[in-house]
């Protein structure tokens, strides 16, 4: 079987995409991070979906990595997102920030800039006012670490 030039390009791109996605499948969180998530959710295992973490794939400077989080919610007085916890697994201390929203927020979205010590997973855990919790993880590759120095 012979490949055309176009097919070869398509295959290579597909393989590259798979390799890039593969490491995300293994979510090996450190103990500290697990403990922080448990403390935040009250022991419950958070479901995936609903919360979306927006991070760059590669951060050149670990001192300022833009991070955004958004949660799907109508944000009314009886159905809103209470808080969102941001964690960085590979930092000396995983806690980054906790956002607290109210019905006055209108939309459960926030953006900030964080420090990342090395290439690692950034985690967002959202807690609704009814107590349900949701999680999202994204890997960020860091070229120059943002701690110590």
């Amino acid at each position: 079987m012979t490949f055309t030039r176009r097919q070869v390009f398509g295959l290579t791109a597909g393989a590259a995409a798979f390799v890039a996605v593969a490491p995300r499948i293994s979510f090996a969180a450190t103990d500290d991070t697990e403990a922080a998530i448990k403390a935040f959710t009250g022991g419950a295992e958070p479901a995936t979906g609903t919360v979306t973490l927006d991070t760059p794939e590669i951060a050149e400077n670990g001192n300022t990595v833009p991070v955004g989080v958004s949660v799907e919610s109508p944000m009314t007085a009886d159905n809103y997102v209470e808080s969102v916890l941001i964690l960085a697994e590979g930092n000396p201390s995983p806690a980054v920030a906790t956002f607290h929203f109210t019905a006055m927020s209108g939309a459960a979205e926030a953006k900030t800039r964080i420090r990342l010590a090395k290439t690692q997973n950034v985690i967002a855990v959202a807690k609704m006012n009814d107590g349900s919790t949701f999680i999202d993880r994204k890997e960020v590759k860091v070229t120059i670490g943002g701690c110590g120095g």
Partner: protein
Amino acid sequence: MANPKPRVKVPKKASKGEVITIKTLISHPMESGQRKDKEGNLVPRQIINTFKCEFDGQLVFECDMDPAVSANPYMEFNAKVENSGTFKFTWVDDDGSIYESENKITVE
């Protein structure tokens, strides 16, 4: 330490019920407590640990920050406005200092 200067961007006008985006930035070193000086001693932690946004006394958005938030902490978030009023922004430093800023908005 230089006096931290807050900078806030709030639209001057909005329509009733509109969800507006607010951007804030404050100049602050956010000393993480991980860094060492030339002699190898740890530089003590000094960060802004809480940021709060209120609209006419009602809480809109609050953020607890840890040392992993970058220097000159930037925050972008939303608020739903139903009537004209004043946004009040408060930053609380580890040393107890409080930095404040106020912005008016007109709802048409």
